[in-house]
């Protein structure tokens, strides 16, 4: 109990609150610009956290994620272009509301729904993580190995358009993770005689390259600097078109709770991210509505449903990270980098070894929600202005920050070169529809996978089939097999459907 209280109290230092504030403001700013998103900003910000305290660093990064997810709704509502992928469902009703002159009302609902979903999911994390960690502590290397195989397969199957491409991404990620020192023999592996590679490839260089710089390279392909039509906030509108009344908020409370539950459930499973959650939340609200036809035409409930669901992913996404050390998405993968920088290994032992930090992070997340609400409400008009910054100013600055970030991550220009190399690889992966998410998660899980495999083989005297003899491991392997079978069956059905359709067209 003392640890819990001390952890929560740590959050309330001025420095920590300042960094959470900065993180959220930075996240909303980045999220508001179409093409930029939270994980990208986290990748860029991790090197800056080197000299912060562990709590300030993690709370700052989680603040970016929170702000970024909400920030995506600003462009979705005012531009009809989602600022972040997870805000795509917000466009359906948010933009029609902006067209009706109710942009400010939609933005406020997006903010309240985001904070509601976020807080809901944070409480789920706080309640669930520690008990799961206790169970996780009883898992041995074969169980961990089976969980990693399960997580990688699920992420590959759900993130990529095709399981095959997802697995190629994961394989490449594990391959790049194997560069450096071999953990068993302590001999250099695939370093090509370069001493800079002996410590392995820096996660930050890889993250900044594949997440941030490659995305900017893709965005820069868009011709010219044509700004889309922005629906400005109209101050002359009636109060009811600019505000959310308590009655209106009560009216969407059921939707908010439903979406938050959906988002939290999606976030807790690796691979099922905020994008799926927001569409599921939106779909569920539409099905449950008495007036489903009004959805897509400017129903405020649609904004609430999508935003609560996508923000509810943020907290619960940390459940697999905190309890098993497995990142459920790219943002968590980047957080692993930050944890490692500060000498903390995410996983069940974290509750024992760094309990105070864990509860400090929980406190930071809750404070972050309050700050998100304040920053969003006060700075709404400022963040709307972000949409009008020309791309030929914002993208060059981001490229420059990418170069700087990669340098400070490793204190070497070699890391900058590596980052540029991964940016090019990320560009091709995005263009050719290979999953860069499985690539990054494969890279993060690679060393853990190798370690579990080593330990499993050593403890079983080179008998890999031990994973079929341990009940928990067997359950995860069975889940993996069922998942693969379902994905293969589904793609077979889709292929047969297209052939039938083609033959039908050919006959007619």
């Amino acid at each position, binding site marked *: 109990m003392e640890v819990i209280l001390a952890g929560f109290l740590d959050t309330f230092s001025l420095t920590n609150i300042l960094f959470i504030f900065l993180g959220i403001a930075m996240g909303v700013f980045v999220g508001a610009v179409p093409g930029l998103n939270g994980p990208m900003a986290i990748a860029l910000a991790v090197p800056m956290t080197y000299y912060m305290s562990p709590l300030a660093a993690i709370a700052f990064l989680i603040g970016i994620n929170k702000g970024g997810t909400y920030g995506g709704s600003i462009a979705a509502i005012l531009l009809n272009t989602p600022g972040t992928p997870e805000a795509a469902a917000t466009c359906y009703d948010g933009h029609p509301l902006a067209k009706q002159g109710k942009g400010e009302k939609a933005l406020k609902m997006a903010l309240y729904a985001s904070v509601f979903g976020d807080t809901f999911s944070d409480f789920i994390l706080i309640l669930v993580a520690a008990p799961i960690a206790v169970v996780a502590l009883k898992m041995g290397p074969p169980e961990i190995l089976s969980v990693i195989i399960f997580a990688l397969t699920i992420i590959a199957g759900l993130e990529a358009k095709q399981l*095959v491409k997802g697995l190629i991404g994961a394989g490449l990620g594990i*391959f790049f993770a*194997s560069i450096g020192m071999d953990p068993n023999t302590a001999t250099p592996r695939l*370093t*090509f005689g370069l001493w800079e590679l002996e410590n392995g490839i820096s996660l930050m260089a890889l993250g900044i390259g594949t997440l941030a710089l490659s995305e900017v*390279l893709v965005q820069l392909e868009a011709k010219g*600097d044509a700004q889309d039509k922005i629906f400005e906030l109209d101050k002359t509108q009636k109060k009811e078109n600019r505000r959310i009344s308590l009655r209106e908020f009560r009216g969407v409370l059921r939707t908010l709770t439903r979406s938050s539950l959906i988002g939290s459930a999606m976030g807790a499973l690796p691979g099922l991210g905020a994008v799926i959650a927001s569409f599921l939340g939106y779909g569920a609200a539409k099905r449950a509505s008495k007036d489903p036809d009004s959805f897509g035409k400017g129903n405020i409930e649609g904004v609430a449903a999508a935003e609560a669901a996508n923000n509810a992913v943020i907290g619960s996404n940390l459940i697999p990270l905190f309890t098993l050390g497995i990142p459920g998405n790219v943002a968590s993968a980047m957080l692993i980098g930050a944890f490692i920088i500060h000498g903390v290994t995410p996983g069940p032992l974290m509750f024992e070894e760094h309990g105070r930090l864990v509860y400090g992070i929980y406190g930071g997340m809750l404070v972050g929600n309050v700050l998100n609400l304040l920053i969003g409400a006060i700075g709404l008009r400022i963040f709307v202005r972000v949409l009008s910054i020309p791309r030929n*100013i914002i993208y*060059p600055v981001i490229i*420059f920050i990418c170069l700087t970030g990669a340098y400070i991550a490793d204190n070497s220009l070699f890391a900058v070169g590596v980052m540029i190399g991964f940016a090019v690889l990320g560009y091709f992966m995005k263009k050719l529809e290979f999953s860069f998410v499985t690539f990054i998660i494969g890279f993060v899980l690679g060393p853990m996978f190798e370690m579990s495999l080593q330990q499993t083989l050593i403890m079983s005297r080179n008998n890999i089939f031990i994973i079929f003899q341990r009940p928990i491991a067997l359950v995860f392997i069975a889940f993996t097999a069922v998942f693969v079978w379902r994905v293969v069956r589904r793609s077979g059905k889709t292929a047969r459907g297209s052939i039938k359709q083609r033959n039908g067209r050919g006959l007619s």
Partner: protein
Amino acid sequence: MRKADIITALFLLVTGLTMIFVIIPVQTYPGEEYGVPPATMPTAAMGIVTAMAGILLVQRLLDRRKTEKDTPSPMRRLQWLHIAGFTALLFAGLAAIKFLHFIPGGILILAVLMFITGQRKPLNIILVSVPTPFLVYAALWYGLKIPLP
């Protein structure tokens, strides 16, 4: 997209096989009897890549649908020029930081990038490219004590 997938799969297949049979054995020390030999992980990872690339290739070759009209190739001449140009520019930026140091190199990179991405107003270029490296340098050096070149 089908053609692009075939070329990519072929490239991955050849790269994977080269890695497994040539590069990994040369670049790893022979294993010990205890535990997993150093070559196991990279070989297994490349094995997954190669096997999946093989499946992708077979899938696309068997897929006789002409999808070219529906989904055009994502990499055309313009895209190749775009990525080649930016890669060259970024490595030139890296060299600029190395030889001119952070602030002058940063100003140069920003100014060139802004010009290339379509900013034609000299005042805008100066107003963004000059203070940004100074601000970043000051924030990192004086604020967070992070040394920069």
